[in-house]
């Protein structure tokens, strides 16, 4: 982001307050000239006292970065989707099965990403997509579990997430999910690290402003997994959380930890009126 737009944003902030600052009020996300994905939506009820509108991180990126997400031939994340599709059909483990043996085509995963994270079948834990994948690998395939941020895991979550592209979120934040949601909210407002900064300090109080070279978005996760140009690779939701807490001179929770799964649910709920972008491109 250029300094210039920082200045423009500052003016907007002074006039309108941080919450409504918007880098590009006209940009529209249309993928492959066909699929229109809303990048602005009314805030969910539980967030109404904070934001009128929730906005995708896509809106806060430069025009060049935004363009990469508008065509699957340009979107570098699609290479990882292809690798994920190979994994889907690949036999692994003592049972001699692939994902396809039971689930057939990957399109059977339609809507799955949009429902995550959710309470597990046993009803005693909150699971992210990664947990469901590993449960099938270890309990149904006799295969080893994949590490949370390993290449095969990120390829698989990429391929599965694409099946929910453009779909509305179906997460539950009440009933059995509520205690996890409460825990996640608590984490969101805790000021971590030696810099004592909470997620809210940056992504709620200062969304739309510049922090050094970065244009602060609302920190939504509807676009994950993300292809990050800086890393030339896929970044998982928990991978991003790790980076953000590390930047507070803090000690992040571990990817896959109960804390990050609860935080994932809460952050997902802050953007639950935005469709799943699967797979976004960020710088």
């Amino acid at each position, binding site marked *: 982001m250029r300094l210039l737009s920082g200045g423009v944003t500052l003016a907007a902030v002074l006039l309108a307050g941080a919450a409504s600052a918007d880098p590009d009020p006209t940009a529209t996300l249309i993928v492959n000239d066909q699929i229109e994905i809303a990048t602005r939506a009314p805030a969910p009820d539980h967030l109404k006292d904070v934001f009128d509108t929730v906005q995708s991180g896509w809106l806060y990126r430069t025009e060049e970065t935004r363009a990469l997400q508008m065509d699957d031939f340009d979107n570098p994340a699609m290479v990882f989707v292809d690798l994920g599709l190979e994994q889907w059909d690949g036999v692994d483990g003592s049972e001699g099965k692939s994902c396809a043996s039971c689930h057939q085509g990957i399109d059977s995963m339609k809507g799955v990403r949009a429902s995550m994270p959710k309470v597990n079948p046993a009803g005693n834990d909150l699971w992210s997509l990664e947990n469901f994948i590993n449960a099938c690998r270890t309990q149904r395939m006799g295969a080893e579990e994949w590490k949370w941020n390993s290449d095969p895991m990120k390829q698989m979550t990429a391929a599965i997430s694409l099946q929910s592209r453009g779909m509305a979120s179906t997460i539950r934040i009440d009933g059995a999910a509520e205690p996890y949601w409460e825990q996640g909210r608590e984490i969101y407002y805790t000021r971590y690290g030696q810099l004592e900064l909470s997620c809210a300090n*940056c992504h709620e109080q200062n969304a739309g402003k510049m922090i050094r070279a970065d244009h602060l978005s609302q920190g939504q996760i509807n676009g994950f997994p993300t292809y990050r140009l800086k890393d030339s690779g896929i970044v998982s939701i928990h991978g991003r959380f790790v980076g953000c807490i590390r930047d507070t001179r803090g000690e992040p929770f571990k990817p896959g930890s109960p804390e990050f799964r609860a935080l994932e649910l809460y952050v997902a709920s802050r953007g639950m009126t935005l469709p799943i972008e699967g797979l976004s491109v960020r710088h």
Partner: protein
Amino acid sequence: MLGAVAACLAAPAAAEITPTEVRFDNGAVAQSLTGVPGDPAAGAKLLSSRADANCVACHMIAAQPDVAFQGDVGPALDDVASRYSEAQLRGIVANSKLTFAGSVMPSFYKVGGHVRPGDGFTGNPAPADLGPILSAQQVEDLVAYLLTLKP
């Protein structure tokens, strides 16, 4: 990095006021933390250094036009010396929250009371004897520089 800067500017340790000894009066700190006058040139550098102070992450400063990517989370620092006294500036840099309650501005000369502090930006847990983000002399250097910012 911090060590190198601190070493060449080091004041006699005995004269230094430690983070827990700093006396705030309505957020302001009248007494120099080291008794050694701050170096405004060193302060200017610190202000835009990514490694430690990184004040420009959140503040714009017209006096340093060469520094790219200045943030706007906090107010611009231009003319700040006409708004605050030396004691007030020292207090703001040492622990901004005693001037601006609940501020997002970090407390640069404070130890203890952090939630999951890390060892710098490594993501590893902080050592038990984690020092403040800035040394006493670095705070003085920054204050000396901020005092030059007037119309």
